[in-house]
Each structure stands twice: as C-alpha cells, then as structure tokens.
C-alpha cells in the first residue's frame, strides 16, 4: 500500500467516481471476504439486484493462495443497507463483511480509468 502519492495532495473523497446522487444518501464501501469460485459474484450481485439496490462500483481480486477473494462494493447508504448486509452475511460463500466510510480509498485510485 502506498497511499502518499495520491492522497497527500487531495482529500480522498474527491477520488470517488461521480455517481448520480439519490436522495442525498451517503456512499458506503463494503469489503467482503468470499470463497473464490465461479458463481460467487453472481450470488452477491443477485441479492442486490432483486431488491433494486444499485451497486455503484465493484472490485474483486483473489487474495493469498487464491482460495478466497476480496470484493469491494460501493453502494449508497439507505435505510435498507443494514438489512442488505445481513442478507449478504448469510451467503454460504461470504466469510465476512466490513463496512467502511465512502471515503475509503479503494475506489478512488481507479478514478483515472473512468475518465
């Protein structure tokens, strides 16, 4: 992790890609540890999609030996989010869910690829 080169000059929140604001809700970053096999992403995205809960950003890479992956989701904090998280935690392939503030840098660094 080398945070200095980008975050020292500008506040991190500026690196979050511009997404349409609905109802003034805050952005939230979710970090999911998951089993790494085809289909996991489909299980997770399906949960959000069927509740018409838009996922604004998704990142996924394997970690360590590749038996698990980490998924980062950028979502809006609305009143359903806590319920959504409980549903996600119930999935067999989801090992843990951590909730971070929308300013978390993980999506910020991707900004340049979305210009």
């Amino acid at each position, binding site marked *: 992790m080398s945070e200095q080169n980008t975050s020292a000059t500008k506040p991190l929140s500026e690196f979050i890609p511009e997404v349409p604001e609905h109802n003034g809700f805050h952005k939230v970053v979710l970090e999911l540890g998951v089993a790494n096999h085809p*289909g996991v992403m*489909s299980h997770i995205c*399906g949960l959000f999609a069927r509740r018409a809960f838009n996922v604004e950003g998704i990142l996924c890479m394997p970690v360590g030996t590749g038996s698990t992956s980490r998924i980062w989701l950028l979502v809006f904090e609305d009143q359903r989010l*806590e319920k959504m998280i*409980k549903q996600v935690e*119930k999935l*067999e*392939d989801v090992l843990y869910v951590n909730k971070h503030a929308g300013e978390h840098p993980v999506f910020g660094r991707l900004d340049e690829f979305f210009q």
Partner: protein
Amino acid sequence: MMQMTGAELIVKLLERQDIRTIAGVPGGAALPMYDALSKSEQIHHVLCRHEQGAGFIAQGMARVSGRPEVCLASSGPGATNLVTAIADAKLDSIPMIALTGQVPLSMIGTDAFQEVDTYGLTIPITKHNFLVRSAKDLLDVVPAAFRIAMSDRPGPVLIDVPKDVQNQMVSFEEYPDVVVPDAAPSFDIAAVEEAAKLIEAAERPVLYLGGGVIHSGAAHMAVTLAEQASLPTTMTLMALGAMPMDHPLSLGMLGMHGARYTNYVLEEADLLICVGARFDDRAIGKTAEFCPNARIIHIDIDRSELHKVKDAHVAIAGDVGQVLSELLPRVKPQLRKRWLSHVESLKGRFPLAMPGVDNPRSPYGLIHAVANCLDDSAIITSDVGQHQMWVAQAYPFRRSRQWLNSGGLGTMGFGFPAAIGAALAAPDRTVVCFSGDGSLKMNIQEMATAAQEDVNVKIVLFNNQSLGLVHQQQSMFYGKRIMASRYERPTDFLKIAEGFGMRAVDLDPAPNPRATLAEALTTPGPCLIHATIDPNEFVYPMVPPGAANSEMIG
C-alpha cells in the same frame, strides 16, 4: 483405496446420510446417476410423472421427517420443472437436496441439447447451490449440501452434476464423515433476561408462533411458556399444531383469514412475543397497524429476520428451542385473570363463524366430518386456495408436523405430491390431502405415482369448478367481474382417478356422506373423495390485501 465413478460416489454418500427414498424423473444427463442407483439396495427410487411432483414428494418426506430428503432430475427441462418445488422449500425453510444432471463440462455454455443454466437459475431460490466440476469435489460437496440444508434455518440445496463428472473415476482413502447439523448460534443471556422482564411486566401479552417452532422441535416448550405466563397464543399458517387448537390459550391462526377475535386480541396487545415467525404480510396485514401498542420480543435463528419488518425491542438470534429453554426458568408463573377473561369475552363476541359445520356437504362441515374419522396421528396436507384457509381455520390440529402446506410460496399443486411424500416417510399413518379442483389439476399426474406406490393417501376434493379464491377476490374487490376464474367445462375427476388406477368415491350422490367418507378414509390405499362445493361459498373473515388486520370483512 476406494475407486468408483462420481455417480456411484453420489449414491454412496446419500446412503451414508441414511437416505432411503428418492423421488425423481430420469433423463439423458442423469443416466449415470440412475445407473448407480440401480445397484443400491438401500435407496428406493420413486418414479414421478413430472419433476415438480418429485420436488414436492421430497418436500413431503422432509416436512414429516424434519431432515433433508432428496429429489433427482435431469438437465434442462428436468431442472426447470424442479424450480417451483425448490422455491417453495426456500420460502418455507424446508431441508431438501435437489440433484440435477447437467450437460458435460466441455459443452456447458454452448446451448447444448437440454442445457440450461441450472446453477444461475437456482441462485435466488436455494439456500446454497453447487455446480460440481470434478468427481473428487463430490466428497466435499455432498456432505456440505446436507450440512447446509439442515443447519440453522433449514432450506433447499441444489447440486448440479455434469454428466462427465458423474462418469469420472475418483479414488480416495476414506468416505467423509456423516454430517449432522451445525451447532446453533450462541445468544446473549442478558437479552433472554430482558425478555423475561418484559413478559413479567406486560399486562396484555400475546405469544405469536411461527414455523420455526416446528423446525426446532420446540412446540412443547412454547406451550409451557404460554401456560406458565398466561399468554394467549396465536399461530401462523406454518405453525398450526404447535399448540393444540382446543387448548384454552389458543387463539388459532392470525392474519388475512384469522378469526375476528384473534386479530382484535393482537390489536390490544402491549407485548408481542414472536417465536420463529417472520411477520409475513398475510399474517400481519398493514405493517404499521399491526400490534400498534405492543413492544416486541423477536426470537429467530435467522439474524436477518430480526428488525426486518418490525423493529424488535428485544431481539434474540438463536435456535428457538434453546432460547425457550433458557427463557422458561426465568419467566415467573403468572395468572393474568383480567387479560385472559378479556380475551375470552372477545372470543365470545367475535368467534370464528363456521356456517354449515353440521352439514358434511358444506366446506366446514366436510372438514369436521373428515376430522371426526381420524385421530391425531393422521397427517393433513392441503393445496392452496379457499379449501386451504377453511382447513387452517377449522381443522383441530393438535401436534407438530401434522399439517403440511405451502405457506410462503402458496403453490397450487403442492398438496397431493406432498401427501405422497408424507405417506412414504410415515407409511403407518393415514395422509389426507385437502385440495381444490384448480390445485389438484396442477399435479394430477402424480395419481399414477400414488397408485404405483400404493400409498395411503386420500384426496378430499372440494370441487367448485372454479379458482375459488380468485373468484372470491374478483367478487369482493373487482366489481364482481369474474374473469378467468370459472372452469366452463366440468372435469370428471372420478374417471381421471380411475384412469390412473386410483380408487374414487363421490360424496355427492351418497345418501349418507359421513358413512361413505368414513369407509373411504379407513380403507388402505390411495383414494379420491370427491365433493361438490358451492362456488359462492367464500372464506370469511377476510382482510383486503394491503389493509390492516382490524379491517376484516365478514
């Protein structure tokens, strides 16, 4: 070192989980599994006439035994035909393993013959699902499927097995261990103590039991809690039987077709103790107006159910049996004379009206006539519609797992194959399926299966030549514009049953319908008992969809 094909390994692993009956329909992509089954001396395969029938037969077995049971289908249409039964199991938390054949791995994604994305299709309707990519993986996948299906909140698990994986040879040293359910999550004793305090302090408490009480085997503890703390007790459709209907504290079923007094009692409650239920819309009506003055204690093994529909003041995520066993010694015995006598007076003023209960040619009368021929050992299933609600209101259920029906998904066509499954799981019991002419037609082909297996299943058919509940709603809420809910051409169900090799009895021309009914119910083997019902008989009371439970009609 053991060596066998993937298909043989699947069958061995099922045998090790003590599976004795599988319901299924063969097809190309499942043939290696069927070949392996032909060599099993332990497993009896029930050949169904439609895969949905197989799914519901497995469900019927599981709802009676309380453990995962297995259905089997081929790829493509075999798998899609299972989908409804799997979704039904998901919504009612029924442990079930669905095994499906799939096209060979190399052909997946090519639109091969009878290929469908079974894995993708079943993601939202299973508790978990697997697409097996190598025979060796079966050593982990099959035990995991059983563990997941029966642990915590039970549910269906699907295993999709490509044909080449079924044929692949696998060598291994030892079989995996036979799996048992995971230990239930631990819970906070402080919350249990808080719950006990709320119960003690309440003046007008109501106990609200759901299907989780049945799954957890906790009905006797729930009844003890009710008796100890003088709690009037209502049950959801899924929990009927948890407390005997004739128990003095029983309020019967709540909700859309609950008795008036039941919904009125809930309206006055100052404490609602919800055990293994999920505040379903058919049970609670308009959310904001359900138990408007009550604090809520919610006990459920599924953490995501807590605070989902109603915020709870005390929420306990745990197995309801374990939580109740901690709660019971902390709840002070109490006799709430005032509250119980008030409930009694509401019951006296607003009872469940059962017009025609003495006439076996009317809905309530027929249900009572059937009940009078049976004892508590009988298993009762129903399809979905008016007959289901009448039975839920009027049948004297007195034990857990006596009543099997499709609660969450509300699947017409559930009742008859589920009854076959129940009879296969409990061959010494009489199984009665209350059905309607609309529902029965949706899986009528399983009459052939019932005849083949010679199961002791009696269908009591309420024939009003209608989709009765649709007809009722159109009459009540759509200006009596009856659209597509009347069957213009009558169906001769007696001939159909006989054509499939089932005995059939008609109560309509019988001079003494009670005697005819008793004879039919007590003669072993499958039988259709036909009764014509007036299509203008409606289920009352009824809460209009979306309205508060206090706004009952009738």
